[in-house]
């Protein structure tokens, strides 16, 4: 007889699994964490290299020399902006036309679900201005985008000046094979989203935007530029985009080659690179954790994040002016951009040769998905092992019961299933309430309580979340007490499988989010059971709930950036993060809020129910 069909052998196997399960789980979890920490170090990291042959090894001579012109444009722009208070559309149109571009504008408007306290916006209506430089000898089938997002808080006028000077320089060259779009957006990311939706003729976020009059072909790559002053000491690059999407690594390699060529200081996550070697193994780990936290948050960290949804590879470059001695002027930045665009001009296909999924412990080192996935795999293995153990225990119990009674096996199973449906439905309903109620009920809350709408939303969120903690006491009054003593095992089994499925799916698209949630939720989910010290397990479970993970990761993030938070500040930041999360879901389609509220919170509530099983 085979291994699994022979009952004697199967029982022996079951006993083996049950005996070894606990050490295996612990080992697997530790292996997952250790693997993740080892990702920052040499055998698992590789040096970056340019994979696209068309953007190969040849360097191009940059001839941009329009530094003064850029500064003049920037001054004019800043003056007009101060005068009008919003984006000086007419001036921009005039200037772009004088430089030689085809100019178009686009107006958009949006009423945010509730006022945005950090950016001080509620009803937003603005205008985007963009100019197209047509390729002199090619059909307008492909294009590149240089975009400067202008919000009301950061004027970004130096970047607008550089954009106009670059446009003037590019217009004088005849070697462009793709059209170049120079885009200036109002209300930074909102404007960019409006423009992108109109360009690709979709409507995913409910933005009302006027259709675009001028188009330039499929966008191959985009660069977003943010400059705070006309002298920069370093250029910071941001890669993480909306929902943790990343641009093709070749774009980052391209940027890095031009940094090296121009001798610019280029930083990732705001920390400078040591070009010779990874200075200190801890810095690699620090950068890796910062990237993981940023990717897990699913926020678009710059205009580029919104381009990625349309599979347009994009980067954001931020010029930082710190207290270093050596400064670069606009000409150096302009030359780097000119070189990048010239190289991108050589592309024949979309960037696809290099990696789409990677982690960056340093600007010149990466970890590919094949090497970092096992970490998540080990963590999810714990859930699988625990589920297997529970299944075997249930079947042993089922088999043990069957022998004396003989028949009511199916009915025992049937009762088990029925008693599972109630907790599942109630948890899911709570999740739905968490998703829908805060935004729906904000006006009601603002009427009855002396709070602003944004605060109302956040407080409703927290209230519903905490109300979920009281569930088990209430549901037991509703559900009949037919639930057998071992019913919690079945519930836990279902919850474990549900959690494993969700975390697995999340880890595939956004590894950082999946890993972070797995690292916190998996141990307590595996340990949850109604026997033993309930208070300890309850405390652990609360500490590893999704909200607490968010709270903790804020502290970790600030700690890694060497700007630690106090508890009060952390709480304020946490509330702001909650509001931003809900807002971004509604305005850009970020998925963190629905995932946590509709997916992970109900799952966590199931474990809470298991813990308080009577």
């Amino acid at each position, binding site marked *: 007889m085979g*291994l699994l069909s022979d009952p004697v052998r199967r029982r022996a196997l079951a006993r083996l699994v049950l005996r070894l399960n606990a050490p295996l789980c612990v080992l697997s979890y530790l292996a997952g964490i250790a693997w993740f920490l080892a990702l920052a170090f040499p055998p698992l990291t590789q040096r970056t290299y340019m994979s696209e042959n068309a953007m190969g090894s*040849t*360097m*191009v*001579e940059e001839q941009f020399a329009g530094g003064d012109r850029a500064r003049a444009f920037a001054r004019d722009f800043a003056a007009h902006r101060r005068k009008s208070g919003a984006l000086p559309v007419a001036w921009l149109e005039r200037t772009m036309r004088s430089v030689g571009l085809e100019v178009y504008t686009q107006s958009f408007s949006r009423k945010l679900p509730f006022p945005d306290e950090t950016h001080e916006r509620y009803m937003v209506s603005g205008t985007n201005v963009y100019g197209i430089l047509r390729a002199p*000898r090619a059909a307008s089938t492909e294009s590149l985008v240089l975009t400067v997002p202008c919000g009301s808080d950061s004027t970004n006028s130096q970047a607008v000046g550089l954009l106009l000077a670059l446009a003037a320089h590019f217009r004088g060259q005849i070697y462009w094979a793709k059209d170049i779009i120079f885009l200036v957006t109002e209300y930074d990311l909102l404007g960019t989203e409006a423009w992108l939706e109109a360009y690709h003729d979709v409507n995913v976020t409910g933005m009302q935007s006027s259709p675009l009059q001028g188009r330039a072909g499929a966008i191959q790559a985009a660069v977003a530029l943010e400059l705070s002053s006309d002298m920069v000491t370093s250029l910071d690059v941001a890669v993480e985009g909306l929902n943790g999407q990343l641009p093709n690594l070749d774009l980052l390699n391209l940027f890095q080659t031009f940094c090296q060529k121009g001798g610019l200081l280029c930083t990732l996550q705001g920390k400078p690179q040591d070009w010779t070697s990874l200075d200190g193994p801890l810095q690699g780990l620090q950068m890796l954790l910062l990237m993981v936290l940023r990717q897990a948050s699913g926020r678009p960290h710059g205009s580029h994040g919104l381009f990625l949804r349309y599979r347009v590879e994009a980067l954001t470059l931020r010029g930082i002016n710190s207290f270093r001695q050596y400064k670069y002027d606009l000409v150096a930045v302009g030359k780097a951009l000119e070189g990048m665009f010239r190289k991108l001009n050589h592309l024949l296909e979309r960037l696809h040769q290099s990696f789409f999924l990677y982690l960056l412990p340093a600007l010149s080192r990466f970890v590919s998905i094949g090497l970092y996935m096992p970490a998540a795999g080990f963590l999810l293995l714990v859930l699988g092992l625990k589920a297997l153990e529970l299944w075997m225990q249930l079947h042993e119990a089922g088999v043990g019961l069957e022998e004396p009674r003989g028949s009511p096996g199916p009915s025992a199973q049937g009762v088990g299933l029925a008693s599972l449906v109630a907790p599942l439905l109630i948890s899911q309903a709570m999740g739905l309430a968490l998703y829908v109620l805060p935004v729906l009920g904000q006006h009601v809350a603002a009427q009855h309580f002396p709070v602003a709408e944004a605060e109302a939303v956040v407080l409703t969120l927290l209230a519903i979340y905490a109300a979920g903690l009281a569930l088990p006491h209430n549901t037991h009054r509703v559900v009949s007490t037919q639930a057998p003593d071992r019913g919690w095992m079945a519930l836990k089994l279902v919850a474990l499988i549900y959690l494993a499925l969700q975390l697995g799916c999340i880890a595939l698209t956004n590894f950082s989010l999946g890993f972070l949630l797995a690292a916190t939720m998996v141990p307590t989910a595996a340990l949850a059971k109604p026997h033993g010290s309930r208070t300890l397990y309850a405390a652990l479970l609360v500490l590893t709930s999704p909200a607490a993970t968010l709270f903790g990761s804020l502290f970790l993030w600030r700690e890694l950036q060497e700007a630690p938070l106090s508890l009060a500040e952390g709480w304020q930041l946490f509330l702001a993060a909650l509001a931003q999360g809900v807002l971004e879901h509604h305005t850009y389609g970020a998925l963190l809020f629905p995932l946590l509220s509709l997916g992970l919170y109900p799952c966590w509530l199931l474990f809470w129910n298991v813990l308080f099983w009577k």
Partner: protein
Amino acid sequence: MAVSHCFSRAASAFTAVLLFSFGCVAASHIEDQAEQFFRSGHTNNWAVLVCTSRFWFNYRHVANTLSVYRSVKRLGIPDSHIVLMLADDMACNPRNPKPATVFSHKNMELNVYGDDVEVDYRSYEVTVENFLRVLTGRIPPSTPRSKRLLSDDRSNILIYMTGHGGNGFLKFQDSEEITNIELADAFEQMWQKRRYNELLFIIDTCQGASMYERFYSPNIMALASSQVGEDSLSHQPDPAIGVHLMDRYTFYVLEFLEEINPASQTNMNDLFQVCPKSLCVSTPGHRTDLFQRDPKNVLITDFFGSVRKVEITTETINLQQDSEIMESSYKEDQMDEELMEPLKYAEQLPVAQIIHQKPKLKDWHPPGGFILGLWALIIMVFFKTYGIKHMKFIF
């Protein structure tokens, strides 16, 4: 009186003899010159120049081919005798900052595109099928004359190929390859159809020497830019244009050819010395075992130029020697005669004796890794299901 008559007769006889011998010497001098006239055995020259790669970053392959085209035209081969195949248009590529030019030297010293380029096969017409059809002459009747290789048995053909290649193949246009065996078979077809007198094959790709390894037809000389296992490297990038302009081997060949004029007597041995390893990084190779004449007697202009030999003479030259050969070549028992002159076609070269085409013995490796694992798994499952104790019922 008789004595003086004798003496005058002797004198006239002597002068006659002198004149005759002088004439003989002169005549033999003329005949030597006539010998030199037919030294090479060819009467016309053809060139087939092929660039097989497209895309802007393969600019250098087009520049390679155009430089050879330029040299060959300069040395006298007319466009009607050149079949130029370029897989992409670099001069009019929108990325070219200097439209209508293709440069071979940095700082734009030499524009090899010129103003009278005639490209016969362009863009997507450069395929393996078209190339082989051109070589073998199996062309549909509607093909224009400029696209045909109308060579005969007195033509010397130069074939130059460049692009991306590997061990035993050359890539055409990112979608197909030609193997060295196909090429050797095409040349054999050409030989059997009397489509060439002598052939010079030059290839500038990575591992180029693998392309001439399989040739087995007579009168072929081959040069390659690198040996098997080596890469051919590009020469110099031009930062203004943004691409590499030429490959090293062809760059130095072009420099060498720029010094050749139609009257130069430089021979093939000099061409073999072009681009030593110090300049080229790869090791150029050549193959002359199929060629009848000694390379030092082969002029560069025999292949790269179309030299019309014209000698004005007032002497009469006796060409009997040739007709003897013509008669004797039809004799039956010529099978094992020593070869006399490189003018006969039939049974000229005892190919089997010269060429040793033994297939390469592949080393036997024990089955590794995956295969072993797979078989181990199969055997384990087999034993598990049937159990060892059952084996004795089977065996």
